[in-house]
């Protein structure tokens, strides 16, 4: 399995450098926790890792090759869970999930696996309009299990989740890591992942930005 790493990363928000000289390295089965105060750039770093934005300087590489060179390949091996759940109220739970599963090449079985992984089986037919925030969050997380990928990028995944759902998430991450998958999670809440490494963005903050 490959290594996912970055070095000399700089991220600018408007004119201000949010962080500089940031490096990270994730191997198969690893979990990396990003933590730091608000505005330290956790979300920005995750979006750089997903390839949604390009770093102001520095490089992110998968197996040594810059992710920008093979954008489509990087998209295929990455699942990104942002702050927003990407759930369409007009569609039912299963319609939402099977769209994303099919889009990433997973079949109907994938969608079903996603539902069971996050306890949404009973809600399959329900229109997403009636879901609570926690249920919507679980539907977003179900995309991870519905269409497997090597790299999971998650931004504050535990927001609005109840205790049982957090346990389901931890189990899913453990299973993912067991198969050699990687996970990078931005969070300020200690979610008790054993053997997870910590990256504090404050070490790379640019204190006296221009």
């Amino acid at each position, binding site marked *: 399995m490959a290594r996912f790493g970055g070095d000399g990363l700089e991220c*600018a928000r408007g004119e201000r*450098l949010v962080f500089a000289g940031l490096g990270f390295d994730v191997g198969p089965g690893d979990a990396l926790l990003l933590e730091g105060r608000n505005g330290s750039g956790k979300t920005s770093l995750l979006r750089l890792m997903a390839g949604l934005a390009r770093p*102001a*300087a520095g490089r992110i590489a998968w197996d040594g090759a810059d992710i920008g060179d093979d954008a489509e390949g990087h998209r295929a091996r990455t699942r990104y869970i942002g702050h927003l759940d990407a759930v369409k109220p007009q569609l039912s739970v299963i319609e939402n999930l099977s769209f994303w599963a099919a889009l990433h090449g997973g079949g109907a079985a994938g969608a079903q696996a996603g539902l069971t992984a996050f306890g949404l089986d009973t809600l399959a037919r329900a229109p997403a309009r009636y879901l609570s925030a926690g249920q919507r969050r679980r539907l977003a997380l179900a995309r991870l299990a519905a269409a497997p990928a090597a790299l999971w990028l998650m931004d504050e995944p535990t927001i609005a989740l109840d205790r049982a759902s957090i346990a389901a998430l931890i189990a899913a991450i453990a299973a993912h890591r067991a198969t050699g998958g990687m996970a990078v999670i931005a969070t300020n809440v200690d979610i008790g992942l054993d053997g997870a490494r910590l990256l504090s963005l404050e070490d790379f903050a*640019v204190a*006296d*930005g*221009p």
Partner: protein
Amino acid sequence: MDRMAEFLAMGNYGGYVWPTYILAAVILVGLAIQSRRWLRNEERAVRAMEAEAPHRRAAAASGSARGETAR
């Protein structure tokens, strides 16, 4: 004296020729003045902020130089 009056009359098209040149002057001079005043305001603003954070000015200057060239 009548040469001036005749010049101003512009073959009785004065009502159209003079507004043209007056408008051109107003727009060009006005824009130039607005631009200079804007520049002077920004200069004053930056100077005020630098005065407010003097001890960081050195770092800021180096930081901004590094930030600028690095991009």
